[in-house]
């Protein structure tokens, strides 16, 4: 019997939701386990880095890597898996474009350390102790890794063959990707493995989206009772659907809340936020600057709204000063 293809799952800076998404394959996970040999999956199985190091190069059929990249350790793991794998799949929003952890690129490391260990209410730390990369406790030397300034996407560190979008990717797109890999029917390198059309196309509210939106004001979700049938943009809510790739079957709108853009843009769009601004803001009803500003007051956090999952990969990238 020929060997089953070998598959690895690994995580970098992420929340573990991508791991849970794999567990959420539920009954299908048994089919996956039958078809492949899992050689690395820290959440559910014991493993050693040396096991992977000992494998011949390119001997792993596919590695699924989730999470953004922050430290040298994660860089090493990413490079190791790249060397050992025929295919690397960037798994989920954090690996693809930084995800929510990349919102930290709007702040400096020092802001974070100072708040957490000194200014945060409840901290009892008159000596202003901070975690040290090296310190002594009763003569014993202990060390910690240093935090990096910037959160990066996986493809800013290694070459990536395919992308699975989402925060997290849904079981359906994961299973489709696994099947494509197993059957060898692979799309061109660099493809995002989810339909290349806007989310609105698969949203149940699509029919109520007016051909010519006219936005007199933006509302925040807590300020209004949301109509469960009607297009969310037409209700004045910032719904990222028009600037976001489909594939999740519009889960958040099905939960009666706007899309926040976690599947990233389609292949024709370089910058998701810019796409949203260009496609939706042209529909702002008032034409006078002051009145336009008043409409935009309804979006108090444009970066968090338009680049919630993509700050590592967009044109803005990070705060410098």
């Amino acid at each position, binding site marked *: 019997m020929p060997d089953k293809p070998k598959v690895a799952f690994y995580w*970098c*800076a*992420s*929340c*573990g*939701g*991508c*791991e*849970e*998404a794999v567990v*959420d394959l*539920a*009954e299908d996970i048994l089919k996956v386990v039958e078809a492949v040999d899992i050689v690395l999956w820290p*959440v559910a199985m*014991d*493993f*050693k*880095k*040396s096991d992977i190091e000992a494998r011949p190069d390119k001997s792993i059929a596919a590695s699924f890597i989730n999470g953004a990249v*922050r430290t*040298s*350790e994660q860089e*090493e793991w990413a490079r190791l898996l790249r060397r050992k794998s025929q295919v690397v799949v960037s798994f989920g929003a954090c690996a693809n474009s930084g995800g*929510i*952890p990349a919102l*930290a690129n*709007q702040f400096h490391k020092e802001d*974070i350390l100072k708040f*957490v*260990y000194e200014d*945060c209410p*409840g*901290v*009892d*730390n008159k000596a202003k*102790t901070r*975690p*040290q990369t090296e*310190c002594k*406790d009763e003569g*014993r030397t*202990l060390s*910690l890794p240093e935090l990096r300034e910037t959160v990066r996407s996986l493809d800013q560190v290694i070459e990536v063959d395919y992308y699975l979008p989402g*925060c*997290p990717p849904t079981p359906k797109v994961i299973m489709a990707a696994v099947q494509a890999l197993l059957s060898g029917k692979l799309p061109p390198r660099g493809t995002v493995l989810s339909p290349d059309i806007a989310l609105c196309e698969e949203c149940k509210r699509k029919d109520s989206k007016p051909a010519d939106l006219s936005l007199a004001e933006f509302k*925040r*979700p*807590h300020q*209004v*009772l949301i109509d*469960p049938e009607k297009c969310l943009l037409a209700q004045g809510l910032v719904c990222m659907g028009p600037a976001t790739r489909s594939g999740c079957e519009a*889960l*958040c709108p*099905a*939960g*009666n*809340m706007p899309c926040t853009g976690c599947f990233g843009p389609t292949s024709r769009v370089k910058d998701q936020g810019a796409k949203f601004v260009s496609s939706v803001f042209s529909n702002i009803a008032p034409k006078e600057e002051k009145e336009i500003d008043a409409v935009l007051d309804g979006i*108090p*956090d444009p970066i*968090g709204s338009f680049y919630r999952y993509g700050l590592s990969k967009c044109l803005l990238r990070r705060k410098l000063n």
Partner: protein
Amino acid sequence: MEKMVQKVFDEGQRKANQSYMRGRTVTIDPITRLEGHGKIEIFMNDQGGVDRAYLQIPELRGFEVFCQGRPAEDMPQLTSRICGVCPTAHHMAGAKALDALYQVEPSSTGRKIRELVYNAFMFEDHALHVYILGGPDFIVGPDAPKELRNVVGVIGKVGLDVGKKVISTRRRVREIINYAGGKVIHPVLGLPGGVAKGIASSELPKLREIAKDSLEFAKFTLKVFHDIVLKNDAYVKLITSDAFTHKTYYMGMVDKNNKVNFYDGEIRVVTPEGKEYDRFQAKDYLDHISEHVEPWSYIKFPFLKKTGWKGFVEGGESGVYAVAPMARLNAADGMATPEAQKAYEEYFKTLGGKPVHHTLANHWARVVEMLQAAERMVELTNDPELTGRDIRTLPTKTPSVGVGVVEAPRGTLIHHYETDGKGLIRKANLIVATLNNSARIAMSVDKAARGLIKGGVVNDGLLNMVEMAFRAYDPCFGCATHTLPGELPLVVTLRDLKGSVIREIRR
């Protein structure tokens, strides 16, 4: 003469052990900079015993800071990304903080939908730990070969049919969260004053059936625990052994009758003797909890403010306290539902009365809580208000400060937001479940290492038992430092007194 022989023998043994340990400079990987992963440093003494073991958490992401300037109503969704294993806990603590921030009482239906989602979440998250994360240590065995100490080994022991039942039960319970919350991983239902989406009455028969099956499954799990753990004297001995015991304060949320409540109530603290020490509302948490900082870990160490930080020590003089299932059962006078209450009584009867100090008893307490979560799901799916149309009360007041609390699977979870008049975050503080336990977990790892590693003998089975000292808490260091990965591939480094690496073991 015999004494002399013994002395020479002991001396020879000591030297052999020393040279064995020194000789074993096997470093599986010389670099231990494992970001987001737990790391244990064990310092050996000259006798081949343990001088001190440190559990270090090597990262933080700083959610409190990068949420500044963002709209408060986004917080339940942003903070759920602290942890993809318990996103619903952060989401719900966030939603409750928004209620307080906007001074709005959720509508009755809105509250019941939240409670249904929350109990469904407690149930499936506990089931995950029982069968996949912590359970293998007991169901398969603490020193079973490591390739079997996982869910595959569990299925081997309990049978494929049971394995499939675990998978399908979790999937169906998670469908409830999916339906009401849009997404099960990072749900979107929570808004100030209630929820975004109502429950259609056409869904009720399905929800009731899932709830009923969950209760059967919880009873079945209690039976599995009985048959495999409690009937095994060696396991019971291990659970009650000194290496896994600490006498500390315990914290948990209770209702007005002092019964365990996961969603709402007051925070109650009991002394190591089990007497009520403190009872307070979440909004006053800063009067009761402070956080200590050590230079060797990114995690902070909360303690009871009135008693104070006295170091990593147990007893009534030290402000160290515990949260999570065992602590919740200790801090309450009982469970809120009948089947859970029965299991609660048996638990304390078997373990020698209240409070229980044996860390490994968390596994049992977790099953008792699964029963309560399932019973609440049955109650709520039979409540006519669940399908009401009044799902949300719109806020009308100006926001300023809001504190929300829930009992997460891993313990008391507090979200505290301060905003400007437009509801944009000025300051956020999160006291996360595992964080409350951080001092006790560090003590447990140290004590287990000291108790188990003797005469220079270190093997995989012993190290797994050191791991069990923290695994019992079902710790989520991802949550605790607001970083991830939440589950931890452990690195254990053994060092001699000079600090040189003797051996390093990774999982």
